């Protein structure tokens, strides 16, 4: 059973590695040539060309991933084993801050969708304060609040606090939105 679990974990990790290797290749062969234009005739005597660092990062990433693939396929079968190459001291750190979780995170996905619509659509249209009020109400509802008073009043208080702090005390003018631009 343990061996089966480890096998699944190894396969999952190999899948991640292959996907990332593909992304790395796209970065190296497509993104860097189109996103960084080296000046003509730029040589080592003027320092390194602008694309050098990006290429170095892509090569390092690819090398690291090939190493890990090789390790998973030929040396160790357990994905639980920490790799013995760069950063092999990692198990000592105990820094498992961001552990993956199980299941489809529906509420998180709904929250993210609401937040992205807030940032890209609602704030530019109606301004920060009305948009913030709407976002707070929507997210409270997503998180299980059903009482109308609790849906309407606390968001108004939060937005009032933000308004006093940023607009009044710090004199920072928040976005007003294209509908309200004079």
């Amino acid at each position, binding site marked *: 059973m343990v061996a089966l679990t480890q096998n699944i974990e190894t396969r999952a990790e190999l899948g991640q590695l292959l996907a990332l290797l593909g992304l790395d290749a796209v970065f190296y062969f497509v993104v860097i040539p189109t996103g960084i234009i080296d000046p003509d005739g730029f040589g080592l005597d*003027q320092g390194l060309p*602008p694309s050098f660092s990006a290429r170095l990062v892509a090569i*390092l990433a690819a090398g690291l*991933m090939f190493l*890990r693939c090789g390790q998973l396929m030929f040396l160790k079968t357990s994905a639980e084993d920490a790799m013995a190459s760069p950063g092999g001291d990692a198990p000592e*750190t105990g820094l498992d801050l961001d552990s993956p979780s199980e299941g489809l995170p529906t509420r998180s996905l709904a*929250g993210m969708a609401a937040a992205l619509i807030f940032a890209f659509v609602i704030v530019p249209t109606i301004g920060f304060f009305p948009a913030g009020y709407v976002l707070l109400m929507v997210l409270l509802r997503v998180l*299980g*609040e059903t009482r109308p008073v609790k849906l309407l009043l606390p968001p108004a208080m939060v937005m009032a606090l933000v308004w006093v702090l940023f607009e009044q005390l710090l004199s920072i003018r928040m976005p007003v939105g294209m509908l309200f631009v004079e």
Partner: protein
Amino acid sequence: MDLILEGLALSFTLESLLAITIGVAAGQILGAIPGLTASMAVALIIPYSFYFSPWVGIPMLLGMFKGSFFGASTTAILIRTPGTPAAAATVLDGHPLAQQGKGAKAMKMALYASVFGDTFSDICLIFFASLLAIVALSFGPAEYTVLITLALGSLGMLSSRPAWKGIMAMLLGVVIGMIGLDPITASERLTFGNPELEEGIGLIPMLIGFLAVSEVFRQMNDKTEDLSGDAVWFSSKPEDNRVSWPEFKSCVPVLFRSSILGTIIGAMPGLGATVAAFIAYGEARRTSKKPEEFGKGSLEGIAAPEAANNAVSGSNLIPLLAFGIPGDIAAALILGAFMIQGINVGPLAFSQNPVPLYAIYGALIMANLVNLVLGFGLVRIARFAVKVPRRLLLVSVLVIASAGSYALRGSLFDIQLVFMFGLLGFVMMRFGFPTVPLLIGFILVPLLEENLRTVLLLASTYDESLLFVFQRPAFVTMSALMVLGVLFLAHRRWRKRASPTPKS
């Protein structure tokens, strides 16, 4: 001696004390707001400081500068949202401790460490300003390159298992850090014609997005009954709400080491409190007797970054006072305030008119004491402030964080970045990639790249030979230390492998 007393008399007045109290209180509150940095806090108060006499305005400014560092830690600990980038490393152990109901203990440890680091660096400033400034100014691009490489290497150990994921996250941070103008040729890199990207990605949206917003998205999926409870719970046991003397004593070596690191880093132009905090954290973990507790609520893990980032606040005044050269933006703002108030700093000030310098020293020490006293008040207020339903706090963090990210540059794009980074951070967490190495890579790599390429440019003037760096004593010393450190680690690792009995 008369001059010292004359200077101290200027800063130890009732008006000065009141000004420091107001400054520290305002700094602690502003610092706790995500997006408002210490520099921004100082910039906000400068216009008001001119309405007062110099020895009211300047102490207020210095108090605000110091207060903002501790204020930033409270939100980092309680809601995993660092008020300023310098408090980002405090999240690593402060927040896990808060999740165990020991938020008050974590905040008090952060307060003690902050005041310790502050006072340590102020004493260094008072006694060794000119000496430290000479050492700091002997650092050129070659030394910076070695120092940052050392930092990246040691901080790479922060990665979670398997290690390749941490390193990949760091490399992604490096790529994000490259967006903007090339440091040498000023040609655009990875901007794809978007003018918003020419300035590069701001640190504030990165920190808020990856640390706070992604965490909010993650917690949104918790059970509904958990979300309707208190945002942060506090244990009722007295020992969970205070730092005992043995606990503090066990952190003293870390406090000293981190304060020394912060003082040295603060005296070097361009590195700053965020870098100091991460380096001190990595060093504390490396040298700790209980490294396995790091990331799970270690008091040493709170003490190290807090002492280091506060130590920067005193020592970054060293090049300012000794040479009139500001080491970072906050120091430049303070210099501006000095100039407008008619206070001269620099080598001549020490010999011709040192009284204002002694007054500044007095104000700095006073600000530390006030910071300690008011800090206890902030801990109480913070405990009360987070007694709101968790779901309300979670969604409020999103709105306040987006307002804070907008405040720095006045750019709607930064609000959008915050949520995009939050999304990316959430996806990374789901697949087991840590976000902290990404931030470290982002913070350190622009400095590394700029210095490395400057070294190569300099090499081209020395008959294209890189050997010129070995003519620099500072470089040779640092390189030797780095090699010795690597050899020591390799030896320790080899001994651990050779040892047949595992540690209990």
